[in-house]
C-alpha cells in the first residue's frame, strides 16, 4: 500500500494534504431522451480520490456510474462542474492536450473491447502506437506489460483464442502499457465468473501496490468493493448518497440503499421458518429481532451477557459469524431480545453508545401486536 493511504486525512473537502489524484466537483450531466423526459445521469456529484487509493463506486443499474467514470477522461463531457486529474483541470484543454492526458489515464472495460484484428501483443501496443512511441521501445514495453499480467506466452494469440479472464488481463496490460498513474475500471469483472473475478481483483490490487496506481473502480457488487477498495461511494439516481472508508460504510451504513447493498454481501436475514419457531414474548413483554455488528474497541467485550444483566433481558442468539474487511475483523450476530419494551430500548441505546452497529430485523410474527 502506498504512503498516501496511510494518511487517512485525505478525505474530500479537507484542506492541505497532497492534491487528490482525481477530484470531481459538482458534476452534472443530463440526457434528454426521446423529447420530454430528462434523465439526470449526474446530479451534482463531487468526489475525490487520493493518490494510490482504490476507490469504488457502487450503485444499481442506471445510477450514473458509467457516466461518472467516463467524465474522468472526458469520454463524456459534463454539462457543468470540474474534472481535475493529477492537479489539472481537464475541461479547459483543447483536443490535442486532452488526448495527451488520456494517455496517462488507463481504462479497463466490462466487455474488454479488444481489437479482434490484432494479436494480444499488438493490442497492448495500440496505445503506444497512437502515442508515437518508437517500434523498438514499443516492443520492450509490450513485453513488460504482458509480464505484469502474466500473459507473456499468449503474445501471438488473437483475442478470440482467450478466456474471459485472459482477455481482461490483456485489457489491463493495454491500459498499463503507457505507464499511466490512474486506472479506471468500468465493471471490469462483471462479465467474469466468481473465481476469475477474484483473480482479476487480486491482480488489480497487486498492480496498484507495485506501480503506485490510483484506481477508480465501478461495480454493482458490494463484494467487489469489500474485496479491494479502500474507500467507496454509493450512487443513486445521479447522486452520491454515502461515502467513506469501506470498513465504516460496511459496518455503519447510514443510507437504506447502502444497507440493502450490504445485506446482499454480509446478509443478516433470518429464514421466516426460524422466526416462526422462536418463542412468543410473555405477557407485558416485547420481542425484537436485531442484527448487532461488532467492530471497534468494544467488539471484544462480553456485551450480550452484560446487557442481559443490566436490563433484565433474555437475549437469544439466532446466528453469528466473523467476517473481515481489508484485514479488519468484525462480528455479526442476529439476536432475539425479550423483555420490557422500555428496557429493550435502553439496551439498544447502550449498544449504540458502545459503537456497535444495530440494524432492526423485521419481525413478521410480532408486528401484528
Amino acid at each position, binding site marked *: 500500500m502506498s504512503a498516501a493511504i496511510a494518511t487517512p486525512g485525505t478525505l474530500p473537502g479537507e484542506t492541505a494534504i497532497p492534491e487528490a489524484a482525481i477530484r470531481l466537483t459538482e458534476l452534472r450531466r443530463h440526457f434528454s431522451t426521446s423529447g420530454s423526459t430528462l434523465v439526470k445521469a449526474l446530479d451534482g456529484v463531487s468526489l475525490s480520490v487520493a493518490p494510490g487509493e482504490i476507490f469504488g463506486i457502487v450503485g444499481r443499474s442506471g445510477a450514473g456510474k458509467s457516466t461518472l467514470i467516463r467524465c474522468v*477522461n472526458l*469520454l463524456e463531457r459534463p454539462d457543468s462542474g470540474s474534472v481535475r486529474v493529477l492537479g489539472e483541470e481537464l475541461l479547459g484543454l483543447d483536443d490535442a492536450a486532452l488526448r495527451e492526458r488520456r494517455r496517462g489515464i488507463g*481504462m479497463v472495460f466490462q466487455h474488454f*473491447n479488444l481489437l479482434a484484428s490484432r494479436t494480444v501483443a499488438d493490442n497492448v501496443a*495500440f496505445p503506444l502506437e*497512437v502515442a508515437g512511441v518508437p517500434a523498438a521501445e514499443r516492443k520492450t514495453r509490450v513485453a513488460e506489460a504482458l509480464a505484469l499480467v502474466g500473459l507473456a506466452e499468449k503474445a501471438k494469440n*488473437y483475442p478470440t483464442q482467450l478466456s474471459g479472464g485472459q482477455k481482461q488481463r490483456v485489457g489491463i496490460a493495454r491500459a498499463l502499457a503507457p505507464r499511466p498513474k490512474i486506472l479506471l475500471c468500468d465493471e471490469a469483472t462483471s462479465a467474469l465468473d466468481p473465481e476469475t473475478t477474484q483473480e482479476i481483483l487480486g491482480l488489480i490490487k497487486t498492480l496498484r501496490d507495485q506501480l503506485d496506481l490510483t484506481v477508480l473502480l465501478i461495480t454493482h457488487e458490494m463484494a467487489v468493493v469489500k474485496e479491494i477498495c479502500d474507500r467507496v461511494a454509493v450512487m443513486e439516481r445521479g447522486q452520491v448518497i454515502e461515502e467513506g472508508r469501506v470498513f465504516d460504510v460496511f459496518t455503519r451504513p447510514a443510507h437504506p440503499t447502502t444497507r440493502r447493498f450490504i445485506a446482499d454481501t454480509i446478509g443478516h436475514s433470518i429464514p421466516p421458518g426460524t422466526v416462526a419457531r422462536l418463542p412468543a414474548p410473555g405477557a407485558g413483554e416485547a420481542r425484537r429481532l436485531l442484527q448487532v455488528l461488532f467492530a471497534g474497541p468494544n467488539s471484544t467485550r462480553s456485551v450480550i451477557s452484560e446487557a442481559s444483566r443490566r436490563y433484565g433481558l433474555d437475549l437469544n442468539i439466532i446466528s453469528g459469524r466473523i467476517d473481515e474487511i481489508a484485514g479488519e475483523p468484525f462480528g455479526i450476530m442476529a439476536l432475539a431480545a425479550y423483555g420490557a419494551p422500555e428496557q429493550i430500548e435502553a439496551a439498544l441505546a447502550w449498544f449504540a453508545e458502545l459503537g456497535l452497529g444495530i440494524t432492526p430485523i423485521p419481525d413478521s410474527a410480532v408486528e401484528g401486536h
Partner: protein
Amino acid sequence: MIPWLNPALEQLFVDAAIETLTMVGGAAAVAILLGLPLALLLYATGPGGLAQNGLANRPLGLLVNAVRSTPFIILMVAIVPFTRLVAGTSIGTTAAIVPLALAATAFIARLFETAFREVDRGVIEAARAMGATRLQILVKVVVPEAMPGLIAAVTVTLVSLVGYSAMAGAVGGGGLGDLGIRFGYQRFMPEVMASVVVVLIVFVQGLQSLGDWIVRRIRRR
C-alpha cells in the same frame, strides 16, 4: 479449350472472357479505390459518427442513393457524355468500365459503410480513451476491424459486376454476356449459350468461394 466449339468461335469465346474480366476487374478496382474513402466519409459524418456532420452526410447519401436507384441500363445511357469525357469514347470495353465503375462505387460504398457501422462501439470508445485521434481510429481501428465485412462486400460487388457487365454489351462493351446474346440467342447457337452460362456460373462460384475463404481466414483468428 471448349471441345464442342469450333476454333473461330473458341477464339471469340476467349476474347469475350478477357473482356468480361477487364470490365469486372477495372470497375471493381475503381469502385474499391473510390468507394473506400466515400464510405469512410459517409460513416464518419453519419449520425453518431466520429465527425458527425449532416451538411456533408446528406448530399453524399443522396448522391449515392440516386446512382443506386437508377437502373443500370438507364444509367449507362444517361452518363454517355461523362463516359466520353473520361474514356474518350462511349463504346467498347474501356468505355463500359465507366458506368460499371460508377454503379459499383455507389453499391460498394453503402456495403462498406454498413461494415464500418458493425464495428463494436466499445472498441472505438477504448481507442478514444487511449488518446487516439479520429483519423487514427478510422485507420487503425475501424478499417481493420471491419475487414471481414469489407471482403464480403467486395465479393458481392464482384458477383454483381459479372451480371451488370453482361448488359454492357448494349454499348459495345463485349464480354461473355454479349457473346451469349449475339451468338447463342440471335444466331441460335445453343452450345454457345450453354458455354457462356456454364463459364459464368463457374466464375461466380469461384469468386464467392474465394471471398468466403478469405473472410473465414480473417475471422478465425
